Structures are given as C-alpha cells and as structure tokens.
C-alpha cells in the first residue's frame, strides 16, 4: 500500500535527478513506517497485559541477562549455576548461546551511558519488536538484490514486518533466541548474496562476522551452515563456478568457521560433527575446482581437461569416502538426534521422547501455513517460478532456500520461522511483478510499425523484421503477438483486487497477532459473561508465594516445563528445567511423578526435594496442565526404567486414558494423580467433583497423600504446591503415621512383626 502511495506522487518529483532523490527519500520514509508498523503490531501483549516476559525459555534468558548485567561479562562466561539441575548444577556459561543476552546487555549499558537508565526487563521485553524492525529492513535489502523491481523490496519488508509466521516468535516479551536470530539469518543471507554477486572479500568477511553473531545467538545457525554450501555446490554442479564464488565461499568458510568456534557451546563442533561436514566438503571441493580451473587455462588440450575433471571427481569421491569412514569409526560425531528427526518424523518418537514431547517439534498441520502466512503462501510458488525465469546465482539461492525451508517447515512447527523470510521475499517478487505490469497508467507502445517497438519486443526486433519481409502479412503466425495491457478496466480491476487482498492480509495479520500470539501464557486471560476481561494470574501468585514463604535454598521439584519459570520468578533451585541436557535426570523426576508414593518418597529424599509443584487445570478447564502432559513423563521414565514404569499400566483395558472411577490402579496411585486431585472433592458437593479439562466425573473418594502435605494452592487451583514431609519422628512409615492419626487400628499387626527371633548378642 505504501508503494501505491509512492506511485501517486507527482510526476515532477519522479523524473530526473530530483526524482531519484525523491524516490530515495520516499523509500526511507516507507521503510521507517514499515519498521514502526512492525514494532507496533507486536505490542498487543504489553498493552493488554503488562511488560512481562512470556512463556518458558524467555524466563531463563531473562535470568541470564540479569546475571550478565549484575556480574559482568567474565563472570557470565564462567557461570556455574548451582541453582538448577540440583544436585548436578549446570555449566551455564558454556552451554548457552550468549548472543541474545550480550546484545541486551550492550543495549542496557549504551542506554545507561546516554543517561537513559532503562530497566533491564523493559529492554528484554522490547528487544524482539525492535529487532523485527531491523528484520524488515534486512528483508528489503535481500529482496532488492534479487530483482530489479523497486517495489519488491518494500513489499517484502512490509510482509516480513507483519506476517504472523514471524510475529509468533517476536511479540513483545517473547525474549527468545529467535528474536534476534531471524534478523541475523536474513542479514547473513543478504551479505552472502552480495558477496557472491560482487566476489568481494569484504562482503564475505561481513557475512562471516554476522554468521558468527548468528552462531552465538541461535542453534538454528546450522541451517545457514548447510544452506550456503548447498548453494555453492548446486552452482558448481550447474557449471556456474566462477572466481566470485570461490572468493566469497572460501572467505566465508575460513572466517565464519573460526568465528563460530569462539562460542564455547559450539566449540570444536564445526570440525567434528557431521552437521557441519557439508560445509567443509564444499570448501575442499571448491579448492579442487578452483585449482583445476586455473590449470585448465594453462593446459593445452581438451583431453587433459577431461582427465582433470575425472581426477576431481575421483578425489571428491575419495574424500567423501574418507569422511564416511571417519564418521563410522567415530572420529567425527554422528548426526545429532534432532537432525535425524528432521528426515524421519517418527524417529524422535521412538528414540528421543523428550524431543517429541515438545509441542513445537510436532509436524505442521496444513492450515497452519495459511494461518501464519495467509496470501503469501499462494504467492510463494509464483515467486519461485519467477526465479526460474531469470535464473542467476542469486535466484538459485532463492530456489534452494525455498525448497529446503518448505520441507523443514512441514516437519516441525517451529521451523515455520525459517520459511517465513523466503516466503516473504518470493511473494513480494510475484506481487510486485503483477503491480509493475498493471499499475502503469499509459498504454504500451503500439507495435504496428516494427521500428517503434515497445520495450517488450526488443529481443526479436531484427528477426521479426526479416520475417515480415520474407513472409506475406496474411500468415497469422508471423504477426507478432501484442503483449501489454491496454484496457483501463482490466488494470483497475486487477489493481483493485490486489489492494483488497493486501488489506485482507493486514486484517488477518492483526487478527492473528492479537488473538493467537499475544498471550504471555504466564498470565491467562478469559472473558467474563458480561464480556469484560478477567486476568488469571495463578502462576505468578504461586511463584511469588514460593519466593516469599520458602527458604532461599528450598528445592522445588516440578516437571521440566516449569523449571525456567521457577528459577526466574520464584528464584528457587529446581531439579530439571527446559534446558533438558540430562535425560536421565528428567526421567528420574518422571519416575517420581508416575510411581506410587512409597517409591517416589525415597527418590525425593535422595534429591533433597522440599517442595513439589504441579499444574492442574481441572477446575478452570486449562488444558495445558500436568495430567495432560503426564503420559510424556511416563514415556520418558519408561525409556530409562522400562521395568518399573510401564505406559500400558496407565491405560484401561480398553486403551483409554481415564481419570475417573475406571482409571487404572497405577494411575490412581501415581503421585501426579494424587497431587492433582488431592482435596479436590471438597470444592464440590459429595460425588459431584468433575474435571473440566477431561470432562469426566471423579471418584467419590478422593486420593490420600501420606508423604506430602499441601502447602499452597493458587486461586484457581492451577498451581498446587506440596511440601515433602520429613521422616517420621517415631520411625514409622508415613502410611502408618497417617493411619495412626486417623485413629485406625493397625491391621494384622501381629503378622507384620514376623516370627520372633532370639536375639543373640
């Protein structure tokens, strides 16, 4: 729409030298407007709720950033965190991507230097929107490299600014690695294209620098590591090897690999893991090809050239075989599990349940494409097709990128994020092509006289002239087809339709952003019957309770989803968190949750657990609670202790997952079940207790807890915290103590004592 604005500017400003200036100025203004729109559309959550960090991972990033700001860079680098993964601890400084925290730390210090003391939380909350503005700008640059159309870049920037596929990870408060990584991704690609086009060491060097930044910011850097070599490889295979490619690729690889190894978490991976081997392989191949090309110009005969080409192939095959050998023998780390799950979607479910359990690792449902990209998704193939029509080095890149990213986006929901930039670029190219064709007010030049042919007829002018001279005019096939749009009606119709589409797109984006992607998930919102908004703030209530009422070092056990939030909001040590680096430890927690109390209690004692936290949505109908995640705990625990925890035991004979009267004994005796429904009956009249998530009635007799006591339950019962009882003073087991307090007689007390044995001292 902004483009149309530019088109409607007066003619005077659009011609000659002043016209160029005007256009440049307009372009800057439009880009700034787009950036402002991109930022503004991400502020829904701040306005609706407040300036708060969202979800799970951002809480860790926020905590790490606070640590960085308070303790300085070197302490951050060497940070050993003993408040997570109790009792193991985590070498946090060496196991995170520091790019995000360092970025906000730098912004914080720069602002302080400028005498603008801004709270670090606000910087973290607003970092993602700020970078989305930059992403729009980077998309503009990237698209402008691809096409000559002046409007394509602006359109791409506008698309990128407001498309929900990107907003989903960059609303205000979503302080995650992706917040800056997408900007870096797009900008690295821009620099790469620039480098390939110009064959300049400088651009390739910048590309390597930004690649290094990207590596420090997000694990998705592997996408770049494999996409750029693939691009180079395809170019070589197409016979498009050029010194420019050699210069840009080798410079990028040599500098970029070194840069990526500076990040402690990445370390030696770029030369040791299979994920990075394609880059090394193409680097070697380019050396070979470059050398051969050089020798070829020196060599006299054609036969030698074929021989050389054969030689290159043989060396390449040998090197590849060597690589395979190294991988098989274990010198090079094999492909990572996450990588396998990209190719075989069932792999993770079988081998690594912890990866499969994350909802954003699920395959994408097809409506999600339309939901996230709207009209772009059907313009996307058209844009890719247009790349084929004018195939140069950079267009090849678009084609490869779109094919790969489409596949990945289909495999994993979260990888929709990598697809979004290329969809925006391709769709903008298609869209601007249509606009350029239909928005021209004057009619195309009448090609009746062959001398006065329009710009479209340039190529065949000479040939058609000759043909016209040779063949009589009556032959219909010889008359040149007249290409161009003459009727104002068709122009107006098409342009109008396109404008409507664009407006619909804006509407859709705004709607999706405000409804689907702006919820902090820490604070829930619901509508009361009268339409007013009701805020459900159970999470913060409970975490704040923990912060105020428990000892500084009280260990809290919960499922790993809430580890980061407990660390960030309650500031209490946790057993497991969203880092998930130690599967066994998580499985231990899973086992404690899914076993009987007699089994769980020793586990909790061994891990010095003081409090256990569960999330329960039964009262409110909040579906993301622990009972719904429970099967994953069981599966992960079963992965380590297949004899003690069995998934089958949690299903009824008919294979149903039930919590009511028909629930299996294993289910009803599991700690998770007991903690969720403990005392739940008391809220309802007798026998009326219902779970609103599962929609089923609970057993009349509620579960009893002997080793835990209820410590806190939040307003809407979403979070329940239990205190682990200390050992009984009289040395009884907790069950016996409970029975005693209830006044029950010991049953069969004589039998339990066993046969009397004569004590011999």
């Amino acid at each position, binding site marked *: 729409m902004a483009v149309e604005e530019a088109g409607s500017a007066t003619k005077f400003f659009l011609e000659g030298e002043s016209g160029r200036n005007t256009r440049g100025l307009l372009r800057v203004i439009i880009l700034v407007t787009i950036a402002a729109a991109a930022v503004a559309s991400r502020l829904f959550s701040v306005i609706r709720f407040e300036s708060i960090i969202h979800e799970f991972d951002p809480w860790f990033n926020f905590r790490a950033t606070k640590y960085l700001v308070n303790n300085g860079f070197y302490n951050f680098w060497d940070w050993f965190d003993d408040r997570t993964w109790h009792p193991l601890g985590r070498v946090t400084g060496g196991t995170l991507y520091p790019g995000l925290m360092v970025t906000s730390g730098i912004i914080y210090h720069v602002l302080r230097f400028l005498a603008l003391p801004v709270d670090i939380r606000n910087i973290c909350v607003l970092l993602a929107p700020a970078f989305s503005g930059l992403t729009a700008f980077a998309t503009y640059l990237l698209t402008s490299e691809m096409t000559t159309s002046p409007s394509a870049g602006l359109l791409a920037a506008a698309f990128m600014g407001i498309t929900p596929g990107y907003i989903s990870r960059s609303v205000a408060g979503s302080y995650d690695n992706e917040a800056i990584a997408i900007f870096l991704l797009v900008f690295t690609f821009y620099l790469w294209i620039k480098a390939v086009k*110009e*064959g*300049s*060491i*400088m651009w*390739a*060097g910048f590309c*390597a*620098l930004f690649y290094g930044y990207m590596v420090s910011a997000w694990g998705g850097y592997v996408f770049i590591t494999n996409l750029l070599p693939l691009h180079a490889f395809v170019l070589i295979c197409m*016979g498009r090897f*050029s*010194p*420019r490619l*050699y*210069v840009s690729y*080798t*410079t990028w*690889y*040599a*500098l970029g*690999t*070194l*840069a990526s*190894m*500076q990040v402690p978490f990445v370390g*030696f991976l770029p*030369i040791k893991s299979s994920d990075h081997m394609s880059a090394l392989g193409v680097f070697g191949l380019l*050396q070979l090809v*470059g050398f051969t090309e050089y*020798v*070829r*110009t*020196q*060599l*006299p*005969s*054609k*036969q*030698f*050239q*074929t*021989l050389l080409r054969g030689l290159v192939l043989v060396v390449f095959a040998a090197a590849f075989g060597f690589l395979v050998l190294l991988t098989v023998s274990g010198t090079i780390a094999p492909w990572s599990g996450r990588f396998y799950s990209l190719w075989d979607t069932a792999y993770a479910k079988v081998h690594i349940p912890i990866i499969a359990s994350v909802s954003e690792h699920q395959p994408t449902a097809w409506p999600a494409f339309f939901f996230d990209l709207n009209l772009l998704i059907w313009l996307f193939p058209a844009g890719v097709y247009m790349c084929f029509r004018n195939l140069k080095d950079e267009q090849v890149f678009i084609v490869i990128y779109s094919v790969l990213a489409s596949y990945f986006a289909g495999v994993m929901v979260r990888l929709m994020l990598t697809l979004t930039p290329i969809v925006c670029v391709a769709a903008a190219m298609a869209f601007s092509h249509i606009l350029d064709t239909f928005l021209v007010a004057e009619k195309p030049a009448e090609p009746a006289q062959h001398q006065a042919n329009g710009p479209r007829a340039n190529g065949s002018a000479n040939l058609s002239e000759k043909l016209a001279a040779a063949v009589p005019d009556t032959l219909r096939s010889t008359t040149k087809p007249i290409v161009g749009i003459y009727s104002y009606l068709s122009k107006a119709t098409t342009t109008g339709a396109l404008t409507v589409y664009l407006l619909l797109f804006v509407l859709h984006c705004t709607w999706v952003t405000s409804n689907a992607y702006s919820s902090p998930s820490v604070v829930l919102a619901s509508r009361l019957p009268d339409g007013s908004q009701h805020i459900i703030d159970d999470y913060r209530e409970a975490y704040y309770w923990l912060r105020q009422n428990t000892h500084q070092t009280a260990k809290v056990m919960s499922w790993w989803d809430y580890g980061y939030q407990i660390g960030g909001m309650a500031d209490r040590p946790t057993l497991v968190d969203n880092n998930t680096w130690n599967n066994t430890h998580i499985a231990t927690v899973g086992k404690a949750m899914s076993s009987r109390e007699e089994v769980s209690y020793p586990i909790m004692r061994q891990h010095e657990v003081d409090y256990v936290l569960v999330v329960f949505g039964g009262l409110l109908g909040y579906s993301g609670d622990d009972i719904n995640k429970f099967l994953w705990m069981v599966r992960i625990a079963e992965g380590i202790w297949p004899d003690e925890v069995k998934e089958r035991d949690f299903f009824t004979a008919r294979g149903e997952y039930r919590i009511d009267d028909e629930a299996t004994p294993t289910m009803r005796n599991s700690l998770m079940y007991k903690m969720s429904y403990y005392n739940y009956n008391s809220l309802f009249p007798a026998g009326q207790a219902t779970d609103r998530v599962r929609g089923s009635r609970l057993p009349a007799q509620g579960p009893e807890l002997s080793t835990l006591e209820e410590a806190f339950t939040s307003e809407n019962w979403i979070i329940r915290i239990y205190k682990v009882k200390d050992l009984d003073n009289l040395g009884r087991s907790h069950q016996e103590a409970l029975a005693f307090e209830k006044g029950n007689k010991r049953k069969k007390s004589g039998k339990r004592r066993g046969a009397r044995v004569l004590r011999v001292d």
Partner: protein
Amino acid sequence: MAPKKTSATQQPSTPKSTTTTTTSSTTTSKPTSSSTASIRNPQDAQQIALGVYNNYIDATPQRTKLLDAFMVFLMTVGLLQFVYCVIAGNYPFNAFLSGFSATVGQFVLTASLRMQTNRENEKEFEGLSHERAFADYVFGSMILHFFCVNFIN
C-alpha cells in the same frame, strides 16, 4: 559448462608454446586413443609439464608470482603443522586449530586476491580495482588473525 567447453576447443589453434602444437597435431588425428597414449607416454607428459612451467614463468606477472610463493609457503607451514599433529598428537587442540586455520584462511584469502587481480578475470570482478582488492584482503586477514589470536588460548 557449455561455453567453457567451446572456448577450450578453440584453444589449440592459438599457438602458445611448443607443446600445444605437438599435442594438437596428435589430437586431430585420433582424439580418444591418442590422449591416453600421450598420458601414458612419460616423455610426452614431461614435455607438457615443462610447457606449462615455461608458460607460467613467461606469462605470470611478478606480483602474482610473489603471491604464489606466499601461497606455497603457507601450504608448507600448514602441512608441517598437520604432520606434527598426526605424529605428536593434537594436545593443545585450540592452538593447533588456530594455527592450522590461520594458514588455511590466509591461503584462501591470498588465492582470492590472486583471482581478483588476475587480468583474465577482469570481467568477473567489474568495478573492483586492484587497490580495493588489496584493501579487502587486509580487512579479511585482520578478521582472520583476530579470531586466531582469540582462539589460541
């Protein structure tokens, strides 16, 4: 690859050195068999190698030769480091890696500079003066060595 092939077929007609004429005469008679024969014949191969060498000595500018010498030096140093790593073990792996990548990176950068300043590649690198190429080279080397020094521990 198509355009390059055609240019290659035209090449024998331009006499550069003595070897071109001999091989082209053999190739015109029987392309496939003679080529294998000329490779197997050690004397022929030697002559070709000599021709290439002479061609290089005559046609390459002095500056480019300097670059080539530097590249050969870098290759030797890199090889030495690699051999050391194989024989004596890679214990300070950081140090080995940064040393080795310094040579590889510098080699690559020098090769790039050589390509950019090569007169035959002029149409590939339009608007890239030799001075600019050298400035880029210095820029790239500075980044490279900064990372190497940082990585060496």
